[in-house]
């Protein structure tokens, strides 16, 4: 046996950092051996969850489960191993006139991660979560058997695994439906909203749009609270596009992707730099309303244009805080949350507000509930724990909960919502933390 080697492992937020065993294999037999010989195993894809969800004593990295299996080009169904990234899938399917039904704000996540987090996108209100389009997946369960799960086969495991944060086993491969597109472009409208009332009204008016999301300046106070820009979009038809783009509507030009070369020093990101950024971002758009065509990368993955952007938050890392508050109490809850953040001075560059549609009752481990969700980035600093606990109180008061894929320090009463995932084999640092805080 080769020495298995303990490594520093951390996810996208660079917080927390653990030293654990990390293993990667592509042969099913060897993966089974690894699972058989260890307790407290968790699968990890591309490490794009923010906190401690994919950390454990024994981490199985799916990076070598990176093969496509089949692509039914007629019916738009693709099958691949769980370590394949959405970015790799897009490269294959977009030129063939297909797109992912559901994609989160980065394309650098693995298919396994998409299922375990049951990811959502800007179209949740219209098209639901990733799992809606999932046909089958194969799972290495706690008894070291490989089982096929679908809506008709091992249904209990199918639904427990969706949004189950890897706690039911290792997803090895998956098959899911794709969406037809005519072009790789999005017809976009960006509309400025002066305050919370306006943006909430815009969400109601934009319900018929497939995609909608708002960027919100969370350092505004008083009458400006909730100042934001709504971005809504539809997949563009070929005939709508400007002539120049019609010639090759499914191909995008290769873009240069710069990279953040080092961790930014701590002082670079503070209340004032965030205020300045937010001001510039809001003022960049001069008109109240702008209509244009953008390629899908610009629309869905604005942050993927810079590699390693997480380094701007410095070596100590950052957390992403994402909660949902039920719709009827949404406005009051959001107002209180935004006030609390503005008062704390812990501004977030990227605060994203979105209205979720109805939840799928079968996917009971899935995070989304019908209501407003807000995602914020906060740099790790001594004042952060206090802010998180203040925000947690508000989320609890308004009957909301926290997205586990982002969580690393929230109150367990807001995160302890997974069911049917308990076993000694598959355990994460996150799950252990939540359980020990619940008792």
């Amino acid at each position, binding site marked *: 046996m*080769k*020495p*298995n*080697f303990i490594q520093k492992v951390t996810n996208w937020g660079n917080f927390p950092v653990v030293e654990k065993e990390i*293993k*990667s*294999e*592509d*042969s099913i037999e060897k993966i089974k051996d690894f699972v058989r010989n260890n307790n407290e195993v968790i699968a990890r894809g591309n490490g794009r969850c923010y906190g401690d969800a994919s950390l454990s004593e024994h981490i199985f990295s799916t990076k*070598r489960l990176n*093969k*496509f*299996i*089949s*692509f039914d080009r007629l019916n738009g169904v*693709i099958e*691949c191993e769980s370590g394949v990234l959405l970015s790799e899938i897009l490269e*294959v399917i977009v030129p063939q006139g297909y797109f992912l039904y559901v994609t989160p704000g980065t394309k650098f996540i693995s298919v396994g991660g998409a299922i375990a987090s049951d990811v959502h996108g800007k179209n949740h209100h219209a098209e639901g979560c990733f799992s809606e389009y999932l046909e089958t997946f194969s799972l290495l369960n706690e008894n070291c058997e490989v089982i096929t799960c679908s809506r008709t086969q091992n249904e209990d495991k199918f639904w427990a695994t969706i949004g189950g944060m890897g706690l039911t086993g290792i997803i090895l491969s998956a098959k899911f439906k794709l969406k037809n597109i005519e072009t790789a472009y999005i017809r976009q409208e960006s509309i400025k909203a002066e305050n919370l009332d306006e943006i909430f009204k815009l969400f109601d008016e934009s319900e018929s749009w497939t995609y909608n999301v708002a960027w919100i300046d969370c350092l505004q106070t008083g009458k400006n609270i909730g100042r934001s820009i709504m971005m809504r979009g539809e997949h563009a038809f070929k005939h709508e596009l400007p002539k120049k783009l019609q010639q090759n509507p499914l191909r995008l030009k290769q873009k240069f992707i710069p990279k953040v070369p080092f961790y930014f020093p701590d002082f670079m990101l503070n209340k004032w730099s965030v205020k300045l950024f937010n001001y510039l971002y809001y003022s960049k758009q001069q008109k109240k309303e702008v209509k244009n065509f953008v390629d899908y990368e610009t629309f869905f993955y604005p942050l993927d244009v810079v590699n390693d952007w997480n380094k701007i938050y410095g070596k100590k890392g950052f957390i992403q805080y994402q909660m949902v508050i039920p719709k009827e109490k949404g406005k009051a809850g959001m107002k209180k949350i935004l006030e609390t953040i503005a008062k704390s001075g812990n501004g977030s560059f990227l605060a994203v507000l979105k209205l979720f549609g109805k939840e799928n009752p079968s996917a009971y481990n899935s995070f989304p509930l019908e209501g407003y969700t807000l995602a914020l980035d906060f740099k790790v600093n001594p004042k952060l724990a206090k802010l998180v606990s203040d925000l947690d109180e508000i989320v609890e008061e308004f009957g909301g909960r926290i997205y586990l894929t982002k969580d690393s320090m929230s109150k367990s009463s807001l995160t302890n919502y997974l069911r049917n995932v308990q076993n000694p084999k598959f355990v994460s640092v996150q799950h252990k933390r939540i359980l020990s805080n619940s008792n």
Partner: protein
Amino acid sequence: MIVLGSNSEIAQAFVEKVLEAGEKYPVIYLLTSNHETAEKFARHLDVKFFQRTEIIELDLMREIDYTQLDEINSDLLFCATGYLGENTEEGLYNNKNTEIIIDINYAKLIPVLNFFAGKMERQRSGTLIVLSSVAGDRGRESNFIYGSAKAGLSAYLSGLRNYLFSRKVHVLTIKPGFVDTKMTEGLPLNPALTATPKQAAEEIYKAFRKKKNTAYVLPVWEIIMLIIKNIPEFIFKKLKL
């Protein structure tokens, strides 16, 4: 394209790189001892690139069926066969282990390379890209059985390049250094010196297009090996390398 050792992650990444660059090969021949894994890769290439492939059994530790190999022709061969073995103290005194390392990395490989080199010589065109190793640049305590077999391979390749030059066939020797693959899984490699298979494939493709003779994957390895090669033996023998 003919790929020897097609289950190597570097070989697979190279094949993908070549296809991404838009090069066309009617068939890619995957030669390997593990049919099942090769099938997975073949399906992957079909989904990603509509690429036709053919899987051919090749186990260097068994009798080679040259009549079957004679039917395949291409002007590009990529050889990634290799076996690290146990380079521990027990490994050193385990003759079976030593023999397999020498056979796969050198003794049983050379006749196969000769065979394909001969085919290219007759067609008067082609390139052989072969993965050797930095371990072959100078024998070191930590892996000198493997290193000595790779040293033999590097010497063979330099001779073969010389021989084939006037016959219009090119030989490219690759010395990868650390690459994050199954072969090095669990070894404590310095991340600054370690390439991903994808990076390795890109560098190899560049070297291929520039018609280089020998190439390291990460430039830093060229410097490291220059130093290692130039340390006087009376000092070198005392070092822990």
